[in-house]
């Protein structure tokens, strides 16, 4: 369970990015965090694993209070949170396998990681995850040889091999085309279900947010303005979050006929 209590974040520039955010996410729940650019979505999830330090407030992961951890304890706590990035953030000059294994860095010593000597079960798990996302044959390729969708899948493997309790997902589809976006969102969703993972997914695509989450949280100028089920995103709410716009076209029901696309693409790359 993740709990944020009265979290504030003010950057050195003076911008108040988060204003008194209180939020609780039970185990296994996938929530979508929506809001316009600059609303503080990224800051919020970065505060959770403290890539950004909150100015005040408390964040608990289970019983651990993340906000007061020393750097050693913080590293241990970070192992419990996998993060997936907007621009994939793979280390481009490392192989796919190294990128996946880098998710275990918090568990192995420096020299073991330097010589790429990871425990056998980590290596096995890495292969299993790559197979799960359909990239087993790419293990020895360098990350910069992959397409956007493939890179994001490697990013997902890197986060999952940490064996986390929580996934922090920052705009996973911002650099992808619509079809790949859906595939990636579905994959994240399936994996969360398989493993009973909680996830916070930052996403600016309202449609995808509705399709792939159990709960939607709306953020506007650093403040929580909506918290409810996906069906609750009526035009009035969206206007409140994003501003005036014709929202009827966006909240259309989506048909679920692209199930075979994932399989199709996996065959193409194989």
């Amino acid at each position, binding site marked *: 369970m993740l709990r944020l209590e009265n979290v504030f974040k003010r950057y050195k520039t003076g911008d108040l990015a988060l204003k008194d955010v209180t939020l609780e996410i039970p185990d296994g729940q996938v929530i979508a965090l929506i809001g316009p650019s600059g609303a503080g979505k990224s800051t919020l999830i970065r505060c959770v694993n403290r890539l950004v330090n909150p100015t005040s407030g408390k964040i608990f992961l289970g019983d651990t209070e993340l906000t007061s951890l020393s750097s050693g304890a913080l590293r241990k706590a970070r192992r419990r949170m996998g993060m997936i990035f907007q621009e994939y953030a793979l280390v481009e000059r490392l*192989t796919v*396998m*190294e990128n996946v*294994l880098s998710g275990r860095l918090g568990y192995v010593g420096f020299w073991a990681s330097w010589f*790429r000597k*990871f425990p*056998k*079960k980590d*290596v*096995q798990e*890495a*292969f*299993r995850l790559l*197979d*799960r996302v359909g990239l087993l044959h790419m*293990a*020895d390729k360098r990350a910069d040889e992959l397409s956007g969708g493939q890179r994001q899948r490697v990013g997902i493997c890197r986060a999952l091999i940490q064996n986390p309790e929580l996934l922090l997902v920052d705009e996973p589809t911002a650099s992808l085309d619509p079809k790949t976006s859906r595939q990636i969102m579905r994959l994240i969703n399936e994996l969360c279900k*398989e493993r009973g993972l909680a996830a916070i997914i930052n996403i600016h695509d309202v449609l995808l947010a509705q399709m792939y989450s159990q709960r939607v949280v709306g953020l506007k100028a650093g403040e929580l303005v909506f918290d409810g089920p996906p069906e609750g995103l009526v035009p009035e709410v969206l206007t409140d979050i994003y501003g005036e716009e014709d929202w009827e076209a966006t909240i259309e029901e989506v048909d679920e006929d692209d199930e075979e696309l994932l*399989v199709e693409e996996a065959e193409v790359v194989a």
Partner: protein
Amino acid sequence: MSEVSAEKKFPDRWKKPPFISNPTLRWLLYVAVAVYFATAFGTMDIDWQRAWEGLPRGAEFLASFFPPSLTDSNGVHVTGTIIDGILDSIWMAILATVAGIVLSVPVGLGAARNLSPMPVYLFCRSIIAVSRTFPEVILAIFAVKLFGFGSFAGLVALSIGTIGFFAKLLAEDIETSSTSQNEAVKVTGANWFQWVNYAIQPQVMPRMIGLAMYRLDINFRESAVVGIVGGGGIGDTLKTSFERYDFSISATILIVIIVIVISLEYSSGYLRKWVQ
């Protein structure tokens, strides 16, 4: 899909693919490198005995940096000598930059393929090649033979070095200048000089001013070196101090050189930004 993968067996070992995939080639390379270093070290004539004896002297040299001193071992003040040497180097660097640039303009124009006929081009390119290949210090020994000891020889050497540097970059800049601009001016009926003045010059000028600053910077550094082979300037003073084992003076001179080089580098970088 997940049910299938749960049953699969996956390898529990993984090795990063090696940098060179062909194993024979890879090992050949390793062996070659090992053999090279072994022979290199084996054939180096190093007098360890002498080096060992020099260590206390090295310590003395390092110690004399803290604090630097302005009197030599006989207690004579050398501030004046150092200032003279530095000024000499500075004047030498300035003059060499000016003379070198003035001379390199015709050479650079001649070495631009889009500007000059083949014989002129080849002639100018060979001037550039020669002056670029040999370090300023080698040019300086010849200049010393011809003009005698002193900063004039250094000046000649640095000027020639400047020609090689500046003319080459100028020629390259001209060769890559915009063809459409060049043609536009040409079709107005301008003669060769008007054409260079109106079409080429505006395109290459800003970068050339920046390079001039940069070269001034290099010339000062080199002016400290040509003195070692008799080309005058602060290098001369420095060498004399070493020959007298006056390490405290050498240390002071080195610090002065470092300070000037750094300030020149910063100011030339700043000026370059300001010009462009």
